[in-house]
């Protein structure tokens, strides 16, 4: 494993040139990349997601949702049992009305844990900007940051420039 001591940043104005650079970098064996885009772009995602598993956010949703269902039923049944008052000849723990509460808590817990998942997995909040970030990336520029060994710096620069980068910074 080569030490990834250096970082090169290429700034692009177009999606197709960014994709070209990414394809080129991947085929040359550079996988430690950070790509900045103002919006999620399908072409770029297609290249990046090819060899990555699906985001595990959905696990947070599932666990949060099931916790919500369980706590909805627990709260309603347990509190009904606390004072076993029979009304309308129905069982004290009458499930059909409790489904409404369980449903609402499923959505509530599921939604909140999804956001927690997104924040944790996306490493947010970030207190200071990462060194390769540039303010233009939230406007109309795309950035490709390549982390590589110092001796490969020149070849990475070459790849980024020939793909059509507007600017290449080390």
């Amino acid at each position, binding site marked *: 494993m080569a030490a990834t001591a250096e970082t090169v940043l290429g700034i692009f104005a177009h999606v197709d040139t960014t994709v070209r650079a990414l394809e080129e970098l991947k085929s040359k064996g550079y996988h430690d990349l950070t790509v900045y885009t*103002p919006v999620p772009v399908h072409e770029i*995602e297609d290249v990046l997601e090819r060899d990555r598993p699906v*985001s595990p956010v959905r696990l947070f949703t599932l666990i949060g949702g099931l916790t919500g269902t369980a706590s909805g039923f627990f709260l309603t049944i347990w509190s009904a049992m606390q004072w076993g008052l029979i009304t309308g000849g129905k069982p004290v723990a009458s499930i059909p009305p409790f489904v409404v509460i369980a449903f609402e808590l499923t959505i509530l817990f599921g*939604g909140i844990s999804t956001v927690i*998942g997104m924040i944790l997995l996306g490493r947010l*909040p970030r207190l200071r900007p*990462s060194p390769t970030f540039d303010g233009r990336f939230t406007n109309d520029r795309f950035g490709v940051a390549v982390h590589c060994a110092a001796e490969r710096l020149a070849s990475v620069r070459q790849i980024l420039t020939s793909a059509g980068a507007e600017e290449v910074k080390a």
Partner: protein
Amino acid sequence: MAVVEHREPTYADVNRDVLRTLAPPGNLYFAWMCLVGLILTCGILAWTWQIYVGMGAAGKRTPQMWAMYITTFVFWIGIGHAGTLISAILYLFRARWRTSIYRAAEAMTIFAVMTAGLFPLIHAGRMWFAYFLLPYPNQRYLWPNFRSPLVWDVFAISTYLSISTVFFIVGLVPDVAALRDASTGWRRRVFAMLSLGWEGSDGQWRHYRRAYGLLAALATPLVLSVHSVVSWDFAMALVPGWHSTLFAPFFVDGAIFSGFAMVLILILPMRHFFGLHAYIREKHLDAMGKLILITGLVLTYFYACEVFTSWYSGDHFERASLFWKVTKSYAWALWLMYFCNCVSPLILFWKKARTSPFCLYVVSIFVLIGMWFERFNIIVPSLGHDFYPYTWGIYVPTLTDTTIVIGSFAWFFILFLGFIKLMPSVSVVEVKETIPAPMKGHGHGGHR
């Protein structure tokens, strides 16, 4: 300057045009703020008077204990439905026209639910005991009755408010990052904090996109459930005119109908004053017009079903209640509702009407009036004419409750007016997603 209508805006245009909406406001804006603030003050004074004097000030007596406040509560909850419909259901259906209006609609949802949430408190009289509705351990071992639709309502609405707010904030994060990078000084620091240091790296987008889709999938059944639960506040009771299985879809459809009308009421002036014609185009107005038309037609069908089922039920009380509503004391309100909700949207069959801001605005106002009266007609005449003639009664609004209801509109508009100057009222990211991505090579205009 606004972008010329015919040229597709670029990414940089979007940033510039959205940032422009946050420029310091002019005198007109402050004039509106003053007017709305004045009306809100009257509402607050009226509420104070009601707390001081008692609920009699609101004209409440048996049998119409629900009267204006619950009418207005249901009205505002209904308004709150369009936002999440646009941001969740239309997101899952990939309806691209939603992108330029969804931020304003989501903000509208949150503010409408916040307005609605005031009414149970106002209605409760001693609103400092409202926390009794929440389940919390207490020394008396008392818990809310979870078999009561009113408690379902507390859960449904607080979940709806929480999830809509979360959805709204998640959508704002990348946009606030764009604001941060375009501003300086203390504003930059505030926006940096609010954006959580968002950078738009592939690692962030990857989880963000997945989370957004999941939130939309969770919010979709939630939208449909909230107004269903609100309708069960009525449908679970035995009152003639309420006790019907039709109520859940009937309420949900009416909510979407009135919600879209309110979206138009807010969006059309925004489009005009901010010069957002390049983003909120005729096709957006057309699509919203069509949705109002279709939900209006479905609502007409539900009205017909409602009348038919009470006649066909053969139930004496149902029939008597219907006859009373259609012909007696509150008949004017019923026929006004039929006109506003069934007849006035029919003009939207013409494309010219659907693309004319003036026409849409007038129809939207009619729809809002009609939908307020729909809730009035469900609540007031039904309660006023149930099984036992001794308990029949007529409700007359007082100055206090009318002022509080009008004040609630001011509260809603003041929140919205504040919002459009503090946060991007058009989504930077989602609008960029719908315009062609910048390409160097030719022959491939966009990624869709």
